[in-house]
């Protein structure tokens, strides 16, 4: 399949990149590993005037261990994250998510920045002309109907990134830079929750790094993902869990995040209240998992039926919590 025409930009420094983004605002598309955006281009889901390759930006590389946090450059490949012993030991959910992204060769090309900033997906949207031509134009393509949900007033496309869900379990932040400005926001705030425009990053902003705060005390984390095949597939349901224990072995802090269940990864807001002060036991996990189930949207727009995927959010939330309990270790 052919790419549409575009002009090519290849900045070699971040300031240069930022000024290009400023100059070509709204008409430029960033490409990092290209494993998501090239398909969107080929399918003509986007047709920017400019494509800007950021892989030459050395400043976006590296996993750095700081006093209070770990900083991951936006261009770090998913495989580097998978293989990082630092992340494997201290941020297990993040390494586990990386281990399950796509397949090894794709995760070698794909970056963490691109992974977080991928668009939502839907069987009625990520298609070539052979499917889309003659099909009614849905919300995500600028129309006023939803093909997946009859009478749907909004878009139910699904965010299928693995990394963001895991990072949010650690309350990770991201650094967004534009000419003359820089903001650091929680990753969860990158997501609008709108299927049509799922990301809140501005068109002249560059994601430069991810900040994962360090944890104290005893804590553990895990990421669990449902897919049909043992590799390659996007998640059909996923969950990340973080648990921290107080000295008496009771849950002091927790975060449960679900993915692949709506246009954004979502924090199960009620989970901490349900778990806090309790021993990490299956029965309470089940109560939190039930909340995850309630929060998830199961729509028939991916490989398996929506109601099944919704149920699986519950199962994988429970399993992520159990995984976090198993991972329990002392802080750093």
């Amino acid at each position, binding site marked *: 399949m052919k790419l549409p025409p575009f002009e090519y930009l290849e900045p070699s420094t971040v300031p240069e990149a930022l000024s290009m983004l400023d100059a070509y605002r709204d008409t430029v598309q960033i490409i990092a590993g290209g494993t998501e955006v090239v398909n969107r281009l080929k399918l003509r889901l986007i047709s920017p005037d400019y494509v800007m390759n950021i892989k030459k930006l050395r400043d976006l590389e590296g996993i750095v261990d700081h006093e209070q946090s770990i900083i991951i450059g936006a261009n770090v490949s998913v495989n580097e994250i998978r293989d990082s012993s630092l992340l494997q030991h201290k941020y297990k959910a993040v390494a586990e998510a990386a281990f399950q992204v796509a397949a090894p060769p794709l995760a070698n090309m794909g970056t963490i920045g691109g992974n977080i900033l991928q668009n939502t997906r839907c069987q009625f949207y990520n298609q070539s002309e052979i499917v889309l031509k003659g099909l009614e134009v849905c919300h995500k393509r600028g129309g006023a109907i939803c093909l997946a949900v009859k009478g749907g007033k909004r878009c139910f496309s699904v965010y299928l990134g693995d990394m963001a869900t895991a990072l949010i379990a650690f309350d990770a932040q991201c650094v967004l830079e534009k000419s003359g400005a820089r903001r650091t926001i929680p990753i969860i705030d990158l997501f609008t929750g709108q299927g049509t425009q799922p990301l809140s990053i501005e068109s002249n902003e560059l994601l430069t790094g991810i900040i994962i705060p360090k944890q104290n005390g005893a804590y553990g984390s895990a990421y669990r993902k449902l897919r049909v095949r043992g590799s390659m597939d996007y998640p059909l349901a996923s969950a990340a869990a973080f648990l921290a224990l107080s000295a008496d072995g009771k849950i002091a802090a927790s975060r449960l995040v679900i993915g692949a269940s709506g246009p954004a990864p979502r924090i199960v807001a009620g989970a901490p209240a349900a778990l806090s002060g309790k021993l990490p036991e299956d029965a309470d996990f089940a109560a939190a998992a039930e909340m995850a189930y309630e929060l998830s949207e199961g729509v028939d727009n991916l*490989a398996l039926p929506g109601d099944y995927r919704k149920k699986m959010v519950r199962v994988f939330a429970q399993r992520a919590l159990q995984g976090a309990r198993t991972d329990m270790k002392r802080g750093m």
Partner: protein
Amino acid sequence: MEKFTLIGKNMKRIDTAAKATGEAIFSADLTLPRMLIGKALRSPYPHARIVAIDTSKAERLPGVKAVITAKDMCGDKWGVFRYTQDQQFLPTEKVRYVGEEVAAVAAIDEDTALQALTLIDVQYEALPSVFTIDDAIAAGAPQLHDAYPNNINVHVKIDVGDIEKGFNESYLVREDTFSAPEDAYFQGEPYAVVAQFDQAGNLEIWMPNAGPHMKAKPLSNVLKIPLNKVRVRKITIGGAFGGRSEISPADVICAFLARKALRPVKIVYTREENTVATRQAHALVTKIKTGVDREGKVLARDITCHMDGGAYSSTGPIATSVPFLCMEQAYRMDNVRYNGYRILTNKPIRGMYRVHGRAFACGIDIQLDMIGAALGIDPLTMRLRNARQTGDYTPTKSYVASCGMTESIVKAGEKSGWKEKFGKLPPYHGIGIGCNSVQTGFPMGIRGGSQAFIKLNEDGGITVITGIVDNGQGNDNMVVQIAAEELGLTPDDVQLISADTEVTPSDPGSYAMCETFIGGNAVRLAAQDVKKKLFRIVAGEFGIGVDNLTARDRKIFVTENPEKSMSIAKAVRIALSRNESISGEGSYWPNVDPKREWVKNPYGQLSETFSFGTVIAEVKVDPETGQVEVLEVTAAQDVGFALNPQVIEGQFEGGVAMGGQGGMLSEFLQWHEGRVLNPTQFGYLVPLAIDMPKINNIIVETIDPNGPYGAKEAGMSVAMSAAQAYCGAISNAVGVYFHDYPITPDKIVKAIEEKRN
């Protein structure tokens, strides 16, 4: 001395080194001087009248060299059978599925060709459509073709014995309905065609095919040029699995574009086009009623099967018959009735698929399990009690000359530990068995036989000329192996010219698993013809009888006294100097009943021999997620004789992946109003290396009396029975018999929930 030097040995395939280095050329790899790129414009409607097509803007686009529509063709309708001629390669009157070709362009590059497509203006008048079997046969349903009232394209009716009597005498009778949506071929290589005409009006054309002669004839018809001007060339082919046997609109379109532009044209399909616009496998709904005696022996069966055929006939009459025929070969039964209906819908065209009808095959087998459970007989014993035997006639009157069904069941049972496992596994752990049988060809009119020639060089090397085609299964190697074996040569001494309609003689093609049996026999006979001639010369020189000679190690020697020998090269030179012909010729026509016809007379010898296979699968199910982990698979098949054991194992393993792992766990097409929602690898989930279980291969040999060295076919019985074994194993693990396939995790979770409540 061993009987064979090459046959029965693990011979390195002659074609794979070129494939390993990237040297092997597939159709899309070809580039010819001045070559253009062709693209087809496809219908966005499932059913619509074509009111007008305006191509003028596209024609004016710089770089566009040809635009064609139905007007450029003469409106002929094509069909595999005279009574199924219903498809125009570019339709004149209406389109019948989303993705059907309506026009095509050839331009200097792909960008230009794609842009030209956007400039073609087609006016359609949308018509009501039907997308399901039920809707298509409902009263007042929109009709696809005038020739097929009620959208019933084919009705195959088989009635043998007295089923009413059989049911009356039965101790237990069950009736169940099984269903499955369409599956897709997903060959590694997306379809591609290159065509060019020369000044004399000869067409040269390359495309993946399962029989060059089967492509040449319709091309000759539609282009209105004699067959000797149609040169379907040999090319490396990236898989077929039944889906590349017929002419494809792409072939015809490419040829017309090349003729109009007077330049070579290449069309390369995208993955999406390969899924939508070549062939798909049928969706099926099968109702099976079976009556058995107390011992589980089948006394009567009544089967009604509805197949969703899509918009055109394709190989409809065959496809409607084969699921039944495989079953009647595999299992004994005296009284049986079959009503197979192929129904037309506004969906892409369905053809023959390696795993013929999972809802049929799995239905038959899982119902045997249900009946067995009611009678207290385990599934393996149920199979043994009904297994086909050597010397039997099938219900539709095919003689079974050799049959290793029982042996395959017994051996698979032993290897898999069936006795120790069935009924004794922990919860959500299961084991299942499936048996099936396939043909080695069937009556195919004048193209039913194969011929081969062999030419010798003065140094004793040979060139084999045969119409046999290799889709990836190793047929080229099989030919070389047989010729070298017969003549005592090494594979290096053998050159192969194959699958080229200009030079190679008639052959049925790699169709219905007949190449080894029919084509292999022809090559063997050609080699024996050469050998006979060479022996005559050597016998004359040595002053002994021809019967006392053996050919081996490039020599012909006296069998009793190997010291006394002559090199084959020398024998050839003697022949040349005496002006004695030593070229070889062989032809093989299978012993099938030429009067047998799919619809009008479905009785008589169908195929000269049949393969028989058993697969046993052991699985573990995660009851919370419904995910299936396949622990081990044992595949056993009566292949007649294993010409090249590793090639056969490869066919078994590929068959387990396609039929079992893919066909029962993850593969199915999803639809929205006639549109395929998963035309790519993103949604159509072909198994990966990480998913595949350990596979035990068991080769059963019955030495067929008429197969080359006793060989039949390699692996298709396994592909089919793998689906059945997976189905049985999952049902056994969950404790619920599944009726709808593939058995995806959502269905398993639902079944478990329903069982709990």
